[in-house]
């Protein structure tokens, strides 16, 4: 159960992991996520599904090392098993023909964006995709995204690859040039916040996918709650996708940092144990 069948590092801290999960592989759609728990003492974390293969019974996630659980996951080898996977969770992305859709992905946010781009394209939209990262190493899934999009623009903060500049510069370029009917933004909260400020200027309806702290992922705990349009929403059962203009970004970012200190201490401790073992 839940065997890791493939692991491929995109960069030092980011890897694609393909996991055997036949039930979820059959039913999952773009926008869905899973909750995983690595081992008996592990925490439950949400991961958005980047891809799936019904025939092989596998799902794909992309993981960035940010703390103990992601580090442990990246340290697992092909053939090893993840203790618990549950899903698919959340509402699937609402896919329809809108015309021209601008999709922007930052960092590992590109992974959950991929199935959405694929589905939007299949629904007959013209899809223009902007991939952004700090440096060349952090641009992921470029070939796949180029393949599924009508046009692909790559942006790096330091100009080490593609065009130099932030994701918003790439978005502006497209919006200035042609009529955009809808935008989808997935990435770090700060990227989604500024990305949606850009689309708001031009009144382009914008969807974001939030990746907040969760425990059960089924609406039971409310850890993932965030204010959307002045109302408290649960990302796990009401989302994960929301109207970007309604999200209270500062509250969301504040809530993302709830365990910053604990996470930092736990990670330091983890690194010491890893060193001792090595």
């Amino acid at each position, binding site marked *: 159960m839940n065997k890791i069948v493939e692991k491929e590092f995109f960069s030092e801290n980011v890897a694609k992991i393909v996991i055997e999960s036949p*039930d*979820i592989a059959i*039913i999952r759609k773009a926008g869905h996520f899973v909750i995983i*728990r690595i081992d008996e*003492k*592990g*925490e*439950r974390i949400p991961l958005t599904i980047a891809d799936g293969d019904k025939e092989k019974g596998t799902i794909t996630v992309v993981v960035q090392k940010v703390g*103990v*659980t992601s580090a442990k996951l990246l340290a697992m080898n092909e053939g090893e098993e993840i*203790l*618990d*996977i*549950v*899903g*698919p*969770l959340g509402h699937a992305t609402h896919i329809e023909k809108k015309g021209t859709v601008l999709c922007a992905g930052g960092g590992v946010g590109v992974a959950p964006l991929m199935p959405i781009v694929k589905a939007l394209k299949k629904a007959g939209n013209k899809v223009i995709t902007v991939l952004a990262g700090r440096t060349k190493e952090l641009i992921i899934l470029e070939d796949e995204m180029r393949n599924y999009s009508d046009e692909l623009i790559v942006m790096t903060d330091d100009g080490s690859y593609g065009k130099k500049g932030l994701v918003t510069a790439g978005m502006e370029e497209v919006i200035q040039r042609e009529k955009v009917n809808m935008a989808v933004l997935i990435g770090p909260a700060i990227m989604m916040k500024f990305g949606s400020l850009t689309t708001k200027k031009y009144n382009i309806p914008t969807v974001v996918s939030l990746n907040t702290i969760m*425990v*059960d992922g*089924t*609406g*039971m*705990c*409310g*850890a993932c*709650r*965030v*204010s959307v349009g002045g109302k*408290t929403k*649960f990302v796990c*059962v009401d989302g994960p996708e929301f109207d970007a203009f309604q999200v209270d970004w500062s*509250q969301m970012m*504040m*809530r993302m*940092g*709830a*365990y910053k200190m*604990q*996470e930092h201490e*736990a990670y330091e401790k983890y690194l010491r144990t890893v060193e001792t073992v090595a």
Partner: protein
Amino acid sequence: MENIAEYIKEGRSDSWRIELRKSMKTKERTSYERVKMPEQDPHIRNKNSIEVNSGISEEMAIAESHRCLDCPAPTCTIGCPVGINIPEFIKKIEIRDFLGAATVIKETNALPAVCGRVCPQEKQCELSCFYTQKLHKPPIAIGNLERFSADYERNSGKMSIPNVAESNGIKVAVVGSGPSGLAAAGDLAKLGYDVTVFEALHEIGGVLKYGIPEFRLPNDIVDIEIESMRKMGVKFHTNFIVGKTASFDDLKEQGFKAFFVGSGAGLPRFMNIPGENFNGIFSSNEYLTRINLMKAAYDDYDTPVLFGKNVAVIGGGNTAMDSVRTAKRLGAERSMIIYRRSIEEMPARVEEVHHAQDEEIEFMNLHNPVEYFADENGRVNRMRIRKMRLGEPDASGRRRPIPIEGSEFDIAVDLVVVAVGVSPNPIVPSSLKDLKMTNWGTIVVDKDTMQSSIPNIFAGGDIVRGGATVILAMGDGRVAAAGMHKYLQEKVKAN
């Protein structure tokens, strides 16, 4: 269930019961004092997670069993939602047949060690006991005796497995492994069905695991009761969300003929007051899940939780008591209940309120939060509360709390747990378009069969009641199992 009164009556005329009644005069029986449950010292237990009540001894159990008059019309049994043959098991204790007592309880109760610990007996069997009603004396300690029987059997290593009818090969699914689901699964297995329980979390037990703390209901005890259900042939499938991982239609295709939905009230309510989303403000579900299910307070577990010096728990139910006592155990200097009515109106079990008081929990009754404030990192550091007074009784029969304008004041808090109730979990209802729901999001069922508007779907527990007790959920599970049996047998005959 209709024959329950007769069944309970029948045992009373067994010769051993007649002999036993004759062996002691009523006057002597009623002269004994009610047994007192031994408990850990409050000042020690409020720093550990060991069970508060340590259980009564054999001698204490027998002494208590002498008090029971083995009434001709045992009113105690009317008060039991799962219809336990109370006099029969108590009289088995009196003749020192402790294993026999456990067997009697398990005829109708799938989780005796659990119910013996968490049932509000004072509102059920013990309330309708002859001692309470007619003698105006403390009732027989039925709950303590139930717990004693279950614990004795477990510790004896000779746990009996209830008789299971020959397999009828009919597949049925139970959605959710909390109290209602387990009760339904147990009864359906006894009737010979091929039962699979689907659970969304990684552990079986629902609220018994994620909600009720170790100091009130140790997880090991829940696990052992689940183990005996496995021995009865019940299959469990964790990490499986019916409505998500597979639809009801998918499961029908896999051969499931009927469903019991006991998916619980898994959607915490908040008060929607300013600042409620600051860090350090949890729903009771989140707080208790992190600690009970994820073991966040242990250093070697990866799940984090925030600790508080000044902890406020909002609410007056059992979950509020569990939360506030948990916070105390995790080192809070002040651990406070903030409840908008007075202590008399609290829905929590009386024993839990007493235990909390003994453990130095502060009770701020007739107070209600109005706003939260936070430090520069967004961590709650202060709350504004308003005084309340009681007005006329409302629909619940309890006196309505009325705010006293201008009475607001602030207190320092660094952790807040909101335990003001739960709403039904939306996942199952939203996956079944034809399912009839109430305005509150609960599933509409026929009270006698627990059948929903979709004939092969039955439901019970909090998804129907919207937030009740373990034992009421179990009662629903039993009624539903009987309803499903009737429905399925009629279908079999029709074919």
